[in-house]
Every structure is written in structure tokens, then in C-alpha cells.
């Protein structure tokens, strides 16, 4: 391109745009790990305020059968106790990926992990 077509201001604008692209990519596209950031807890169709996965804690959620106990640690969440018979929610272990969901169906408690960008759209199991 003929440099006479561009003014000094044009060139500065182009440099600024090009310099901005890596930052935009990193900010919006490049969450390569798909790490979860928050867990959304839904009890019988009612959603509780989201909880950050960085807030280590053990919390009790009252479901339709009784209390389920959840543990949040190291940016992960799991069921550690639930009044269901199958205990599949407990056997499924820790969950940390954005986009993951896990539920204790008998107790009508569902967990959805969200993040800025999920690496996976959904999970097969």
C-alpha cells in the first residue's frame, strides 16, 4: 500500500488496533482450560445466587427429600452427602469444567458450573 495514502494518524490507529487484537483474543476466546468460575444451584426449579468456586466452603442445600451437602474446594464442587438411595451424585465426584452440570434427581437439586467460556458445550456420560 502506498504510504502516501495514509496519514500519521491512520498509521497510529492501525498499530493500536493490531496491538489490541492479542488482548481481545486472550480476553474473549482463549480460555483454553474451560475452567469453571461459579456454580449455580437450582433447587426444584428455583435458582439460588451463584457461588464462586474460589470460595472454599461446605454448604447444606435443602432438597425435596432432605439436606444435600456440597463441598467447594480448589475451584471444584462435589456432592459429599445426599439423602437419595442411588448416591450417583456423590459417585460422580468433583466437577470443575465450565458447562458441566450434575444433579441429585431424587432430591431435585441441580448444579451448573459456568465460566467465561466453556471448552465443552455439553457432557456425555
Amino acid at each position: 500500500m502506498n504510504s502516501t495514502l495514509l496519514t500519521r494518524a491512520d498509521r497510529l490507529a492501525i498499530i493500536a488496533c493490531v496491538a489490541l487484537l492479542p488482548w481481545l483474543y486472550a480476553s474473549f476466546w482463549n480460555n483454553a482450560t474451560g475452567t469453571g468460575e461459579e456454580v449455580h444451584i437450582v433447587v426444584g426449579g428455583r435458582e439460588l445466587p451463584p457461588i464462586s468456586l474460589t470460595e472454599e466452603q461446605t454448604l447444606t442445600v435443602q432438597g425435596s427429600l432432605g439436606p444435600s451437602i456440597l463441598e467447594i474446594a480448589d475451584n471444584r464442587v462435589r456432592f459429599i452427602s445426599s439423602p437419595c438411595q442411588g448416591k450417583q451424585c456423590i459417585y460422580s465426584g468433583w466437577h470443575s469444567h465450565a458447562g458441566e452440570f450434575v444433579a441429585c434427581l431424587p432430591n431435585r437439586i441441580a448444579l451448573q458450573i459456568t465460566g467465561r467460556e466453556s471448552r465443552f458445550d455439553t457432557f456425555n456420560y
Partner: protein
Amino acid sequence: MRLQQNRILLLVILLLPLGGCSRQEQLHHAQLFSFGTLVDVSLWGASPSQIEHAEQVIHEELRTMHHVWHAWQPSPLTDINRKLQEGTEFTCPPELLPLIVQAKDLYRRSGGLFNPAIGRLVALWGFHGDSPPQGPPPRPEAIRKLLASKPGMDDITLHGSRLLGTNSAVQLDFGAFAKGYAVDRIIDKLMRLGIKNVIVNAGGDLRAIGHHGERPWRIGIRNPRGQGVLASIELGEDESVFTSGDYERFYDYKGTRYHHIIDPRTGYPARGVTSVTVIHDNAAEADAAATALFVAGPEKWPTVARQLGIKYVMLVDDKGKIHMNPAMAERIRFETADRPEVVLSERL
């Protein structure tokens, strides 16, 4: 004039990559908790009206699955089972006829390893209930007695919409098939609503059509033992991913796990396999095939997969070893820290 055109062109080129930053607004993600099934639905680029209709369709289909196909609560299916046992010809309800026709076909093609006629065996093991049994397992004599009568889908004769049971031991249970069949019906209806990009994930088994914007839908396959994601895969325009595993419904009794996938040949839970994942272009067939290949086991699954026309299979055996066909191996990306041991089969 030319200077101005060049500037505009340059600006457009520089701004193009930024357009993608708004893509999250195109994605609608929801969990629907309906009739004992948790459905995770992802829609890309759908209008608010399409989203609302989609949720209604999913709810309606799950209600049908629950009320019409229920294997142990009073339902049109339990009515059919009673009439099959009586051995008199009757007219099949229209909502069940296509299910039975397809099940007979899959039974034949799987060499009887997918056998929805063994409802009595499944009930004997205690899996006809909303909660898993606690054990002990059934007495061997009771299992032998049921096996001796060899219930199969060929014991049901079809004349148009008229059905006749020729073996009183037949009891239909579509647990290994109904979810896939329902997912196919849901996707068909969503496509008729004009929805082009959607994943319908019913309790971990799914069918996806279209894309997530400019890229394919990406699926994480959970580790059947341990935690996290075993592998990931990108899906084509219209594909279903179904997994049958020994962790779905089971009980432990005196240190032995008894799961719900019963081998119709032995009458006992199928052994040697932890999970089978199938990718196919039809959810009902993928569902049935995952069960049939689980029963076939680590040695015989390629033969049964060929009979069923399945092109992509991943089987995790009870030692944690992974068996795949080469086409599946080309598509799978392992997500574990250590690459698991893989055994490749011949081409399917």
C-alpha cells in the same frame, strides 16, 4: 475518493475479528427438570419464540416417554405386556407401534443382544423401581427358569397394527431405547420449528444438529471411573452420542457390583465392560447399540457394531483399557493427564 475507500476497507478488515466477541449472546443454555429426567439444552441463534417452543416440545416429549412407555407403573406399555402374556391378538396403540417395529429390527440386527423383551429379568434383578435395589441378587434358579423360556422380540408377531404374543415370558421394557427414541422425536420437532443449531442432552445422552456459531459443537465425555473428562469430540452436522455404563443404575452386595445392563444370554449383569460410547446419526439406534455392544463385551463388539451399521465406538473395559475402531480414534481427543492404554480394532 480512492484514498477514502482504502481507509474504509482497512477499517473493516481490522474490525472483522472483533465481531466474534458477541457470540455468547447467541447461545441459550437451559436445564429442564421434567418427569424425572434432567435435560440440558443448548440452542445457538434461536429466537425467543423458538426457545419458548423448544422447551414446550421437550417437556411434552418427556411426558409422553414417562406416561406411555413406563415399564412398571400403569401405562399403555404395561397394558400391552398384559395382552402379550394372554396370547390374544390386539391392536397396538399408535404411539407404541413404531417403537416396537424399530425394536424388533434392532433386536434382529444385534443378534438378540439388544433385547427389550427381557423385562421380567430386569424386574427380577430389582431394576423396575424408582430407587435402586439393595440386594441380595436373585436366586440362580429363578434366573435359569426365566432364561429357559427365551423371551425375544421374535415372539411378538406383527400384522399391520395388530400384535400377537407367542411367548408368555415376554415383557417389554424399553429402558435401553426409549430415551434415544424420545431424543429423536424432540429433534424432529425442533427442526420443524426452524431450529437449526441445538444439542438436546437427556441425562448424559445427546443428539446435536448444526453448529455452535462458526465452530462444531464440542462434547466432553466423562470418565466412567474416577473424575473429570476422559475425552472430547467435535460433532458433525447431525450426530448422537450415547453411553451405556455400569455406573448408571447399580447396587453393591458383598463387594460385587450388580448393574442394570442384563446379558440376555446369561441372565446376569454383563461383565468385562465399564462403559460403551457410540456416535451415530440416529439417537434411538445409538441408544440400543450402546447397550448391545456393552453386552457383546471387549472381544465381540466389532462384529455387533458392523451388524448394526455403527461407525464410531469407544469401549472402556473393566481394567480401564480403551478399545476403539480406527475411525473413532481419529476423532477422539483424550483429556486425561496420562494417555490411557488403547486397543484399536479393525475397521468397521
